[in-house]
């Protein structure tokens, strides 16, 4: 082995030096670009949070928002909110809702990116393949039955169990000979969404009037009425999920060579797949449990970020967490300010924009592969 290395290194030594330089240069250019994207996303996220906290029916100037936040940690550089109920509006209504939008957005975008990696298909997404609806069946079941056997954790837990079951079903149904064809994936999504939709319809039908309203609105997806208690429940799920998938980012890269080649490079594909599915279910249920079904975030965000920073999952996954959080906080801000005195369902908004995008992606992947491959 050493012999080979030495002789080959000897033969191509000048080439080697030049090549190492070139690749090192291009790699550092890539790193700069990735750092820049992260920086921009972070700044945009902070600005958006500030704007979202400041504007609404009650307008609280930026400096007072900052004053209120920093005041909590004992820094008094900025003034406290001046209006009556300003402080209450910020801490009881807006902040929990903003944090919830960040969590849900990050969870959905990362879940989408991981699903796409595991399926080897950029069209896989929790909403389109029906994992969100599956989780929603569990959550609405718990609302209908008024189950509280695990206290406030009952709804997210049921969402998780049903979400995991749906994920595994989709995986088993949509794959053939180690790969997922676009048609199979989309049709599986249609079928799973139909069954889950029927289950939710039945639950809504059986529900008493009060629970019915709750289920209907929640099904459209909304962050209205998010409370700290709920945030505290789903935040650990989101953080755990995002951190856990970082550990499989390299293996997800290898998986895009195909299942067999990944195995030949030492990846335990079966274990990777199951772990990834578990994490997708965890992330999706953290998003669905209280915010309802919000589609297409997991499709749009990874796709756009892949165009900018490339497909490597080590950078893509954390970027998706930031990008998803940003997209959903913008969408939620739009949902509550677009029409005065009305809180639009955010799921409706994301579907309105995500639907055409999905179609465009579908057309593109069709023309690229020269058919419905």
């Amino acid at each position, binding site marked *: 082995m050493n012999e080979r290395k030495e002789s080959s290194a000897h033969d191509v030594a000048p080439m080697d030096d030049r090549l190492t330089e070139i*690749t090192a240069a291009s790699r550092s250019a890539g790193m700069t670009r990735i750092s820049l994207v992260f920086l921009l996303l972070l700044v945009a996220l902070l600005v958006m949070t500030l704007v979202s906290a400041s504007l609404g029916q009650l307008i609280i100037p930026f400096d007072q928002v900052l004053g209120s936040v920093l005041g909590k940690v004992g820094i008094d550089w900025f003034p406290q909110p001046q209006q009556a109920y300003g402080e209450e509006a910020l801490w009881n209504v807006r902040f929990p809702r903003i944090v919830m939008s960040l969590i849900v957005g990050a969870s959905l975008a990362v879940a989408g990116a991981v699903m796409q990696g595991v399926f080897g298909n950029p069209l896989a997404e929790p909403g389109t393949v029906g994992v969100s609806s599956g989780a929603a069946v569990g959550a609405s079941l718990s609302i209908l039955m008024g189950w509280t056997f695990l206290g406030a954790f009952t709804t997210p837990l049921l969402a998780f169990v049903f979400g995991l079951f749906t994920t595994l079903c989709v995986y088993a149904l949509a794959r053939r000979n180690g790969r997922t064809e676009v048609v199979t994936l989309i049709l599986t999504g249609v079928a799973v969404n139909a069954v889950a939709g029927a289950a939710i319809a039945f639950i809504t039908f059986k529900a008493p009037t009060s629970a019915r309203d709750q289920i209907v609105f929640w099904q459209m997806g909304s962050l209205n009425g998010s409370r700290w208690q709920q945030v505290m429940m789903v935040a650990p799920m989101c953080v755990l999920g995002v951190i856990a998938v970082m550990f499989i980012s390299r293996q997800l*890269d290898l998986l895009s*060579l*195909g299942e067999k080649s990944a195995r030949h*490079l*030492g990846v335990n594909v079966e274990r990777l797949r199951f772990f990834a599915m578990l994490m997708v279910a965890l992330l999706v249920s953290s998003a669905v449990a209280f915010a309802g079904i919000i589609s297409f975030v997991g499709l749009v965000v990874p796709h756009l970020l892949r165009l900018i920073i490339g497909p490597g999952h080590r950078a893509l996954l954390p970027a998706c967490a930031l990008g998803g959080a940003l997209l959903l906080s913008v969408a939620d801000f739009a949902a509550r300010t677009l029409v005065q005195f009305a809180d639009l369902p955010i799921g409706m908004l994301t579907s309105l924009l995500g639907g055409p995008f999905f179609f465009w992606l579908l057309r593109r992947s069709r023309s690229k592969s020269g058919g419905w491959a």
Partner: protein
Amino acid sequence: MPMPGQQLLSLTSVGVGIDGRSILDDISFDVSAGEVLALVGPNGAGKSTLLNAITGDVELRSGSVSLFGVPIGAWDPIELAMRRAVMLQQNDMSFPFTVEQVVQMGRSPWIGSSAESDDEMIVASAMAMTESEGLSERVYTSLSGGERGRVAFARVLAQASPLLLLDEPTAAMDIKHQEMVMRLCRDYARSGCAVVVVLHALDVAAAYADRVALLESGRIRSIGRPVDVMTAESLSEVYQYPIDVFEHPGHGLVILPSRKEGDQE
């Protein structure tokens, strides 16, 4: 690093069946460090299945495959990847990674080992050897079939394992790159490693292989030096088409389908 002549791979009466149909039957041979073994035979003879049996991708109905004396099923996936690299016929990629990133993936079994420090040098030299350094910034999914083949081969070289298993590595390549890949295979084997390669082109097998295994409907008809295995008689019989074999001074074997009748007409 294996000693020259050390037995790397050993197959003992391997049988494979798919859906009750026998694909491979009673295959036995050893592969030693330093040699290139070519697997040849007509379509459907079981060449790719045999390679799959060696990589552990199909279940054996009988017999055993062992690497360094240990059954392949008993190896840890990472340790196995350090010892054998595989290049498949299909080299698709689901996402638009760059060529350099794809070749770097070949180094992944060595992450965290002492060999990791050589990564950059090994990746660079694998790309230089396969003449793919000019492609390094290109997106893999935009490459032509022959270019993909070169990059996939570079990735397999970068894995730096003592056993290479290649399934028709030159299928989409032009003559220049076909010869380059085969020369690299021979050099790789000479350095103390071993290469098992499925080949369609009989003359290429004759020119570069130390030994040839001729497969016929799931069995090995003969295995040995190219001159002994690839005779006009046995090739014509196995391929069910008249094939002429000439010994060319300095060029080894020249193998041609017989076209005499066509010429006369």
